[in-house]
């Protein structure tokens, strides 16, 4: 590792960082593309995350289109798919619907929320806020980013694989995920038009549509799927991403003395590596579902590399005076999140690897003995346990829910304190609550499985631990309110979004209590109630938290101010349409409507939700349109925004002490910290903020290091 020459021992005192980084002047590649600077990597993560945000959002709109107007031709995409021969008409078939919601969830969770919260802000904020020049392992940090790119590329490529992308839901429960690789080639359109709901009279025979569908299934050739046929688009995207990954490695590891020689050999090695690895990927990821497994396994490695880095950086590279209890809550939350990532992600990697092996027909970790699909016996040894996957998957994915919210909680705490001009109410309890959530987050996973057929008494155990996790969440909410109480609140776009985070998190948290109760969960499990719940937590809370963070740290990241008016328009529209979209879903959920279903109108119990679903769809489209001001603001401010001062929000933490954007090495001098992170409206100074580095004679004569 090219560890930076920063004092590992904070007590070493002031140290000229500028000198240490002066000879670091690198070439064009190392500065702009393959940079190891945590700020550049953070911004790169942000760009990729926002790109996937757009894709994931469009997929959500497709899902809403199908639910609102199942018979209506899909605009643009419908014509394209019909021409390409993938759809039999312009209306969306069921298999595409399944793929759309699967990929919406997968992209949003793994490629938007986690990378933006952990990847972007972990990278960007940790060194700046703790007064370090860079991460502890800058090369590893860059590698984590460039490893995430092939993961994303494989996920994107899966759209172009035969049979389409994964469509077993983002949880990919086996045995379905074992089977569904050919979902895209099902004769869905035919069956959809002719299949009728079962009649009232006893009617034992299947109608013609079903029979034909069944016949079509029978003629599939079981050997055809191992071709690994990748479309040119998928190949190019993956080659480029792998070339970049190997290019990054070569850029730092090929040292032959001559610049030209380095470049040539690096290119050669990168190309060779990319081709070889691409061959391997092509073999393993022969369809959408296996690509899904492979992509997330690789992404998991990237996450672990990032988490190791964050933990080391926070424990070892804090500047003098920056004790653990002087860290801003955003850094604390990223610290605890990194622990979660480090402990949970290996379990996900194991699960996905087992699934990948199962999916390739090599093992039966999750496949029970004697399954029969379409009345065809499955020639497999069996002996596996489908619930094992769920246990392992949720052992990762429940902590992952906290990975997706804790950093937002931390950043919102920062932003609320700055906006309210007040110290965070109960700084230490906030940290203890974070720790409590992280700890309890590991022992609540099976509340996703209350109705899965596992032992009901085990359900009670997990219901109790789940109820308990509401306590630290409640502490945080009340402390945020306490922070606003008695404040002198300045409303900025960041502040509006941060307050929306609190308000929406309350709804998401309260609706969680319904699901935590095993008995009530019988009715609301796996329905629109949980869809509403997860979106209140992940959109209402996390995404508004992300917006808040972008508005708040944009000046630092890009050196330009964002337009407050556009920010306010974006916030108001998003907030309104978000609530219209997702609050309504609670009603669907109470009515019992289940999720992941393309045609809820088939069921007499839910057919009356037609108009409500249309309403939700319209709201969702408007929510999508409401993001246009944000895009304009984000791009426009970069070009035309006024230059940002060092400390536009009059905040106290270290990142505002340096220039906007900060130079390579972050600080001209190693900062020395004298105060806690939230000294707003302190009586010690005239201004209403007291910077962490500001030394006050008489008070700070003996700074604790």
């Amino acid at each position, binding site marked *: 590792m090219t560890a930076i020459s920063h004092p590992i021992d904070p007590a070493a005192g002031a140290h000229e960082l500028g000198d240490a980084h002066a000879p670091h002047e690198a070439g064009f590649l190392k500065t702009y593309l393959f940079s190891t600077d945590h700020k550049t990597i953070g911004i790169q993560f942000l760009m990729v995350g926002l790109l996937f945000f757009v894709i994931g959002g469009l997929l959500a709109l497709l899902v809403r289109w199908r639910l609102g107007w199942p018979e209506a031709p899909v605009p643009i995409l419908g014509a394209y798919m019909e021409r390409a021969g993938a759809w039999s008409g312009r209306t969306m078939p069921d298999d595409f619907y399944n793929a759309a919601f699967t990929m919406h969830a997968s992209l949003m969770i793994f490629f938007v929320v986690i990378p933006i919260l952990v990847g972007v802000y972990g990278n960007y904020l940790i060194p700046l806020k703790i007064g370090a020049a860079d991460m502890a392992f800058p090369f590893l940090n860059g590698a984590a980013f460039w490893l995430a790119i092939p993961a994303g590329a494989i996920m994107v490529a899966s759209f172009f694989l035969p049979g389409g992308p994964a469509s077993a839901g983002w949880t990919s429960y086996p045995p379905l995920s074992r089977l569904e690789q050919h979902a895209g080639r099902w004769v869905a359109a035919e069956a959809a038009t002719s299949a009728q709901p079962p*009649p009232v009279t006893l009617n034992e025979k299947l109608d013609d549509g079903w029979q034909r569908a069944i016949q079509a*299934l029978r003629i*599939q050739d079981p050997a055809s799927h191992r071709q690994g046929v990748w479309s040119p688009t998928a190949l190019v995207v993956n080659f480029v991403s792998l070339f970049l990954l190997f290019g990054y490695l070569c850029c730092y590891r090929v040292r032959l003395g001559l610049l030209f020689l380095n470049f040539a050999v690096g290119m050669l090695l990168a190309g060779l590596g990319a081709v070889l690895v691409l061959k391997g990927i092509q073999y393993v990821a022969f369809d959408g579902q296996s690509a899904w497994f492979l992509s997330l396994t690789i992404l998991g490695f990237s996450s672990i590399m990032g988490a190791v880095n964050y933990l080391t950086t926070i424990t070892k590279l804090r500047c003098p005076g920056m004790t653990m209890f002087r860290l801003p809550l955003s850094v604390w939350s990223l610290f605890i999140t990194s622990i979660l990532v480090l402990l949970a992600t290996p379990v996900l990697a194991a699960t996905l690897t087992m699934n990948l092996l199962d999916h390739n027909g090599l093992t039966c970790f999750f496949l029970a003995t*004697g399954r*029969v699909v379409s009345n065809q016996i499955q020639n497999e040894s069996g002996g596996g346990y489908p619930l094992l996957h769920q246990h392992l998957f949720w052992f990762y994915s429940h902590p992952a829910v906290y990975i997706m919210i804790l950093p937002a909680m931390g950043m919102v705490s920062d932003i609320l304190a700055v906006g309210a001009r007040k110290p965070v109410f109960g700084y230490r309890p906030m940290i203890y609550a974070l720790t409590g959530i992280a700890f309890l987050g590991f022992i609540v996973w099976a509340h996703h499985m209350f109705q899965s057929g596992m032992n009901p008494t085990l359900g009670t155990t997990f*219901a109790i631990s789940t109820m308990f996790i509401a306590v630290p969440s409640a502490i945080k909410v009340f402390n945020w309110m306490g922070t606003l109480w008695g404040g002198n609140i300045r409303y900025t776009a960041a502040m509006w979004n941060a307050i929306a985070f609190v308000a929406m998190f309350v709804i998401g948290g309260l609706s969680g209590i319904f699901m935590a109760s095993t008995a*009530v969960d019988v009715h609301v499990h796996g329905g629109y109630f949980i869809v509403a719940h997860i979106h209140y937590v992940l959109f209402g809370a996390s995404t508004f938290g992300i917006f808040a963070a972008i508005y708040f740290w944009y000046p630092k990241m890009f050196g330009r101010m964002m337009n407050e008016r556009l920010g306010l328009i974006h916030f108001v529209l998003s907030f309104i349409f978000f609530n219209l979209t997702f609050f309504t879903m609670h009603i669907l959920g109470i009515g*019992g409507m*289940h999720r992941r279903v393309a045609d809820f109108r*088939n069921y007499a119990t839910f057919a009356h939700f037609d108009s409500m679903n249309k309403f939700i769809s319209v709201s969702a489209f408007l929510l999508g349109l409401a993001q246009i001001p944000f895009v304009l603001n984000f791009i426009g401010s970069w070009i035309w925004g006024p230059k940002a001062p060092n400390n536009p929000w009059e905040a106290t933490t270290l990142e505002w002490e340096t220039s906007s954007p900060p130079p390579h090495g972050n600080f001209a001098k190693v900062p020395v910290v004298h105060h806690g992170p939230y000294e707003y409206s302190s009586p010690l100074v005239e201004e209403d903020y007291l910077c962490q580095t500001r030394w006050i004679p008489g008070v700070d004569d003996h700074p604790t290091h």
Partner: protein
Amino acid sequence: MPLQLHLYPLAIGWDWWLPPNYAVHGRAIDQLFIAIFWLTMVIFVGVEAGLIYFMVKYRRRPDRQKAIYSHGNTRLEMIWTIVPAIILIYLALVTKGVWENYRYAPNVDHEKAPKILVIGQQFIWNVVYPGPDKKLGRYLIYPRPTDLKWPTVPEGRSFSFPTVPGPAYLKEAEAIRVLNKYVDEINPLGKDFSDTAGKDDDWQSALNRPLEIPKGEPVEINIGSKDVIHDFYLPNFRVRLDAVPGMRGVIYLTATTSSTELEKQSRREYSLAEMETLLKDPKNEMRIAIDASSPHAEQDANGFLYKYPDKSKKKRGATIIREHAVIPLVDEDTGKPIVQELREIGVENVVAYAPKYWDIVCAELCGVGHSKMKGSIIVLERDEYEKKYGTPATTAAGAPSIVAVAGTTTQK
């Protein structure tokens, strides 16, 4: 006699609450739901109101230079830690009682309860009744190409290769082909024919038939799956359990209302004019269940329908309304209002009622046809149930009438 139409307007107005509950254990679940609903509502309103109040009261004002400098209040924080903790522990304890009553059914005589086996497969529910001996046989045991012996066959069927003792002695591909044929044509549910308990099981027409249970009596529903994980969800009975391949789920259910009672309770007459108003309101989706005994009802491959008596009137098929289809306001073929067409064939009144069955919903994603996987549950009077499923079957044993069904997504 005026022709009578049976139709049920599915939702008159907006239904924003829990679907009606017809299960005994469901009452406690609903009460718990309502309790949590009000609890969370109070907290929700309180917290959001407080938030808005603080936002307004403590907004930036020119006359105030600084905010209140406070790092917190330990006593206050203790209160808002301990109070939620107590409430949540209490909630967990209440939940435990309701949950265990539902899952373990301690008040039910588990030996005596009628047993029914529900087997999920892509995208159909199979229902097996135990027959007069009230004992279910063994199911979901499928032969494997490595077996040394041929699987058992029902009486009257032959499935053997005299020269070969079992599938393991054939080439793998050949063995799989033969066994697939066996599963497909003889034994789609993987029944163990050597098991005496299952001798009189009513399994041959299990495919996609409605689940019928007696009223007022706890029923033991066993849940299994052939292929992937399904979820046996009865929204109107507060029952949900995953059907997991390789596992057997058990649910006890006591229905409070029979289907006939439901129909009777909800039966109401509408004049055609009333029906028209209902149809004009886009909120009401009317569907129709046609009485099979009605002289004008015709049956085609997809169920019952009403047709114009005089077929020459129209060229493109004379169907007016089809069972279970949404009734449109205007007939697409003729451009005439449906109500007018009904009047023309002599309909004066219609009787609307709730459907005679409730949905069985598959609530776990199970593949491409997931949203088509819909079964129905019918509640019979106790004696009716006994007569239908408790007495020796009248149908002669012989070739099973099971149509091989298939799943769907794939298999490769």
